[in-house]
Structure formats: C-alpha cells, structure tokens
C-alpha cells in the first residue's frame, strides 16, 4: 500500500545534504556510476534525489527508486568526500522513508517478507546447523554465526571455517540463528522489525554462555556491532574469522597457486581490517601472491553490497566483472561470502578460510 511520502528520516540528514558542495569528487570512484555513466546513478546524483524527495519536488516513481537502490553501499563515496558528507546515512534515510511509505521495488519487498516470515531470504527450510551436520551445544566458549549467504549459497566457505575451528580444537557451537537483518536495512525496513531480530539473535547467543562470536560475513558482523548495539547490549565479543585465526598456529602445505586478495568493503573500508587476511594468506608456504591494482582503501566493490542485485542484477554482475579484470586470471581470495558469490560469476574465487583449510597439512 502506497501512503503519502513523508521525509521522516530524511529530515534528520538535511544538514548532510546541505553540506554537499556538489563537487563531484565522489563520481570518480563510484563503481556503479563508472559502469552506468548516468549522473543520476552517481553518489552526488543520489544525494540530489534524496534532496528532491525531502523537498517533495520529485515523486518517488520507479526511476527514482531504481537510482536510490542502484548502490552497493560500499562507502567509497563517503570515504573520498572532501566535505565529509555522511552519504550512507542519506541513502539509508531515503530507503527507509521510501519503504515506510510503501514505495518499494518488488524484489526487495519479497526478499524482506521472506526474511521476516522465514528467517532467511533463500528458501532455506532446515536449520542451518543441520546443513553442516552439527547440533548446537548448550554451552560453548565461541559461537560461529554463519549468516544466510554462507548457509544457503556458499556452504563450502562455512565447511572450511568449521573445519578450521574444529582442527584448532576450539570449544565452539553453531546457532539457531536468524538472518542478521542487514538486507532489511538495505531495503529500508523499520527499526522495530530489526530490533526484534537483534534481540532474537543476541538472546540465542547469550543463552549458550558464549563469550565470543565469529563471523565469515563482514555484513553480519556489522549488523551486530553497529546496528544491534543501538538496541541492546552485546554481552559477548565479536570477531571476523580473519581476526580470530590470527591467534592460532596452522601448519600448511606448500602451494604455488597464483592468488590475489579482494578487500570486502564492509571488512576493509568499514572496519579497517586490511592486514589480517593478507597475513593469513602469506602463511601458506610458497603461495604466489600479487596485489590487484586497486586495494585496501581504494579497492573496487564486488558489486553485491547493499542488496543491489535485487534492484539491478546485471549491474551487480558488471561491477563484479570490472573488479575481476584486475585479478588478471589469478584466483581471488576474499573474506566475505557475498563478495565470493558475485565475483565467482566472472572468475575463480575462494574464501580465506577455504584457502587455509584446503592447504592444512594432512596428519
């Protein structure tokens, strides 16, 4: 149902929109704009659309919705903006107000409904731990929150992570988890719904006496660290697996595989975790590692963030292709199931945990 559009959350980012000097710096490094070349698909263009929605000058029709959602939320624009405009806050506010008023792209609506009713968007019917044949323990030191993408679309990443955790003899458990809620934020679903999910996931972990939760998916980790903490206390630590595995010795086989590393936006740009995955890759003896042209803060996006492929699948694939060109035929190692899932359309990709697990020294 379409209600009158009200700029409820956009009202809170007016100063940010006014601060934008329209200098266009953010056009240079937005992968979406670089692919589409329409100014309306640029970060500056999206800020302007948000402004038009705020003032009521434009109707939120399909063209506006599409442009607003043609964004991977990679954060590159915000990182590069000379005026420190909080672009992601503006984009999230626009998505929120659109969704609230019922202006929804059909695929986001379906995806969100599925998450809200089934706990995941991928028709996953059985509990995730079942896929991996391991029942949750009543109590454990560490929990592995695998996320929907690992469970239902990239299970080999999960298998590798679980394999490593078990190899290291860690007291751990899988969980009766529900979707972390990141795709709901991407769609613009209200805080109330997200609060429920946050509480459910946090309670599930808390009840098992867990002290540390580890993630394969940087976006799931971001939900816990940045989003849940707004609604509830987190009575445990959170760590990405590339941080977690730093603390352990691993005996690894030689390989002469030619690899490179893709920095996931949420892990790198958002949390500054650049060195840890590289250190893990470097542990594999003899590995032939070369950086891509654009790495770390300057890394290109994989094309799958922000649930953008729901708005424009082809665009997501093209952004991924652009990234994979920089790999120049090397296997791309990454630390995010979303990145892997999209990049593998255009070349060979594996997770850091997969690389380590497949090269573990056989006893």
């Amino acid at each position, binding site marked *: 149902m379409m209600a009158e559009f009200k700029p409820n959350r956009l009202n809170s980012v007016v100063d940010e929109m006014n601060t934008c000097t329209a200098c*266009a710096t953010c056009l240079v490094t937005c992968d979406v704009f670089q692919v589409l070349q*329409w100014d309306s698909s640029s970060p500056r263009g999206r800020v302007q659309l948000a402004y038009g929605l705020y003032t009521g000058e434009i109707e939120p029709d399909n063209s506006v919705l599409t442009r607003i959602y043609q964004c991977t939320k990679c954060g590159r624009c915000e990182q590069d903006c000379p005026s420190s405009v909080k672009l992601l806050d503006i984009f999230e506010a626009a998505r929120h107000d659109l969704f609230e008023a019922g202006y929804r792209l059909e695929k986001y609506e379906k995806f969100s409904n599925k998450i809200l009713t089934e706990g995941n968007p991928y028709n996953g019917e059985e509990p995730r731990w079942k896929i991996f044949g391991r029942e949750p323990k009543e109590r454990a030191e560490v929990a592995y929150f695998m996320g929907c993408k690992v469970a239902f679309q990239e299970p080999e990443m999960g298998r590798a992570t679980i394999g490593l955790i078990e190899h290291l003899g860690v007291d751990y458990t899988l969980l009766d988890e529900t979707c972390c809620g990141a795709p709901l934020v991407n769609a613009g679903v209200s805080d109330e719904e997200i609060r429920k999910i946050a509480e459910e996931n946090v309670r599930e972990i808390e009840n098992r006496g867990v002290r540390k939760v580890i993630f394969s998916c940087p976006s799931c980790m971001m939900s816990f660290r940045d989003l849940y903490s707004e609604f509830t206390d987190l009575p445990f630590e959170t760590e990405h697996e590339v941080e977690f595995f730093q603390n352990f010795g691993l005996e690894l086989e030689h390989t002469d595989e030619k690899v490179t590393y893709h920095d996931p936006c949420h892990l790198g740009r958002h949390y500054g975790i650049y060195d840890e995955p590289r250190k893990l890759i470097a542990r594999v003896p003899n590995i032939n590692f070369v950086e891509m042209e654009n790495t770390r803060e300057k890394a290109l996006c994989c094309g799958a963030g922000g649930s953008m492929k729901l708005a424009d699948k082809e665009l997501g694939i093209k952004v991924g292709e652009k990234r994979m060109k920089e790999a120049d035929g090397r296997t791309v190692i990454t630390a995010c199931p979303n990145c892997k899932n999209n990049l593998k359309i255009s070349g060979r990709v594996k997770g850091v945990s997969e690389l380590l697990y497949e090269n573990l020294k056989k006893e």
Partner: protein
Amino acid sequence: MDPSIVKELEAIVGPENVSTSVADTYVFGFDSSIHRHKADVVVMPVRTEEVSDIVKLANRHRIPVVARGGGTGLSGHAVPVKGGIVLSTRRMTKIIDVRVEDLYVRVQPGIINDDLNKVLMKRNFYFPPTPGSGKVATIGGMVANNASGMRAIKYGATRDYVMGMEVVLPTGELAHLGTRTIKNSSGYQLDRLIVGSEGTLGIITEITLRIMPVPGNKALVLAAFDDLRKAGQTISDVIAYPVIPSAMEFMDRTCIDAVISAFNVNFPHSEAIVMIELDGHLAEIADNMEIVEKIASDAGAIEVRSSDDPKEMAEWVAARKAVLPAMSAMPNKASVALADDMSVPISKIPDAVVAFHEIAKKYDIIIATYGHAGDGNLHTKFLLDVNDAKAWKRGEAAVGEVYAVVNSLGGTTSGEHGIAITKAPYMRKERKDTLAAMIAIKKALDPNNIMNPGKLFEWEGLILADLRYPAEVEEDGHPAEGFGEGVE
C-alpha cells in the same frame, strides 16, 4: 516534452541513450553551483553525426540544448534554466590521435582531464591547465569555460592550448575551426571565440589541444605573514624579480585557522600564508629557492620553510587542499559558490582581501579567501546558514560589494570558472561596452536562441534564483546592491 520528439531522439542515439525519467531529468538539472532547474530530456550521443542530428531537430522545434560534461561548473553553466535537452558528453570520451611529434592531441569532448593526462604522461607529455576539478571536469567543459588551474601563472589557461576544434553550430551544421598547426594566421580566430562561450554558440565535438613535455623537478617554499600586505609584497616581488614560479598559492587567516582547527595541520597561526612552487632543473630550482626565501624574509615573513621532499610537499599541498573540507566542517554553515573566482591585478591582492574581510564583517557572514595568487585569481568561499533566507540576502548584498571592489581595483568578475548565472549581473556591468557585440555574435550564430539560452548576458534575474537549497529567497527586483557605476 512532446513524445514524438523523444521518439526522434531515440531514433538518433538509440532508446538506451535517451531518458525522460523523473530521476534523470531532475539530477541532470544540477551542477556544482547553487542553482538547479529540471531538464525535459537527457541524451547521450556517441558520435558527432548524432550531435548534429540532435541539434538540427532541436533547432527545427526551437528546443533549448544544453551541453553537459562533468557537471562541475560553479555558476550554473550546465543548468537547463529553460528546460529542453541536456546533451551529456559522457559517452564521447575517445582520444582520437596522440601526436607528440606535432605537439598535439585530438580528443572527443567528454574525456576527463586526468584521464587524458594519464595517457599523455606515458609519453612524458601532458595538457597543463589542470583545474582543481581535474578528476571530473571534461575537456569540452574546460574549453567552454576557459578553465585553468593553479599553474596558470607559468603554463597558461585552456585557451592557450586550443589549436582547433570541430563544432556543431546551433543550426546543426558542422564547422572546423582553427588548425592542427602551432601557428595560424588564417582569418578570424573563431576557435578562440568558442573558448569561454559556455555552450552558448555550439556543441564542441572534437578538440585539438597543444601538449607540453612534463616539467622535471619541483620544490616548495612556504612563507607565513602577520600582515596581509607583507604577503602581497612577497607575491609582487617574486614576480618582479623576475622568478616565475609554477604556482603561487595564497590562504588568508580564515582558511588557515579552519585547516588548523579541523585537521590539526602544522601551519603557523598567521594572517596569510603564501606557498610558492618552483619547477625546472635542480640547479635552477635551488637558485630560485634562495631568491624566494630572501624576498619573503625581507618582506617580513614570520616564518619561511622550504622543501623538495615529495612527502613533505604533499603534506603542505594537502593542507592547502583541506580548505574546502575544513570549511564544510563548520557547524550550521555550508560553503556555497558565490563570487568564487574574481581576478585582480597581482599587486592588488592585499587590497582585495582586506576589503573582503570588511564586507564579511558588515554582513555577518564568513568569507574565506584563498587562491592562485601568482595570477591574481582569488577564490572566496561564502559560508552561510543555507536554510535561512536572510543569510542568503546578506550574502547576495556582500557579493555585490565584493565585485564593486574587484572592479574598482581593475579586476574582472571571473578568472577561470566563468559567468553563467551566478555572476551574470556583474559581468554585464563590467563588460557593458561589449555586450552589444556579444549579443550580435550570438544572434548571428544561434538565430533561434537554442544553445544554452538564458545565460551570460541573457540572464535577466538576480543571482538567488532556482536555488538548490531549502531556503525560500524572495527576489526584490533589484540587482545586488553595492555595485558602483564607475567601473574601470
């Protein structure tokens, strides 16, 4: 827009390169200025013939056509104030021919300055007039605005590099202006007429640019002063010596305080900082460095630093570039493009800056002044509460006084950004004895007035029109105050 015209446009460039969507017509109505106005349709041609067909169609139906490159104009250049067709050159980005042996490169207009230079640098050549917006501004937009950058003092402006061009005239016919030779005395220099014409005389579809070898080494001298006049003295003395630096940048106290407070930059607290870049052979740089240091000390600098360490130099340059973000960090105020790039004779810089400070005080706004002091080109940043109509009106009045000062000092309204809307009333006054000639040229080339109409001498209103900010500013029917008639 009449659907049959949209159909015809689609037939020319393909439906995927035409849009009348709400999102596209809205966003293509903005540039980097304070203005915006919705377009009726956006087209993205690839080839010259397509541009020609679009313009013929527009001319037949009397529809405005506004060329748009990077959309970084600071005075509303690419804003379609009369609606119509916005013609984006984003798909016209080819480098047609690089001829280092003939000292030229031929390009399509949509290529971005830095992208072109990346290619030229591989051959140890470049196109020098890099503007601050070089990562986003297109060569077509730079030619149309006669853009330049901080190295203009030694390397000139875009106009000094344009050898020839292909233009689709407002009737749709193709004209080849200029040449591919270094010298050319063959009749009217019509290519020069198109330089700075702001899209009002035709659409540039190809440009032949002169290129230069990349200069060798660089060094920087940074001098801080407790008195603006001492800074001005240094600037004049360096040039009169003569040492022609590759750049000479200036910052006033407002800028210095802002970068120190926002980014803890290691600059001396002072009234003015002048940063002088020297380039050339090592021995020449060393000699000039000594001369410049002495000139600054003799003029009474409170601190003089020099460096040829790339890292240190990069830090100083970054601090100079931090002016804009530092301004944006000021609470409850936004930096807006008003009176942003006047030029005065080099020796008049201190007079201008002192006067701007007084005007800022009078109207209770913040005016930060910095710029390319070596060529007399100053940039002012106005900081206002953009939600407040009264602040805008005070800003507008201050703009009028700023230009009155600029003109009384023998300066000009725009040194590099151009006129379009935001500076139109002031340019009209400054150039009143050439307006008739400009209008006659425009009429001769564009009889139906379809090319970027309503700009420059045609802009009728005040400057606070079609604002892209929330404040509702009422026009009171009088051009900004404070602009004396006795303009030199």
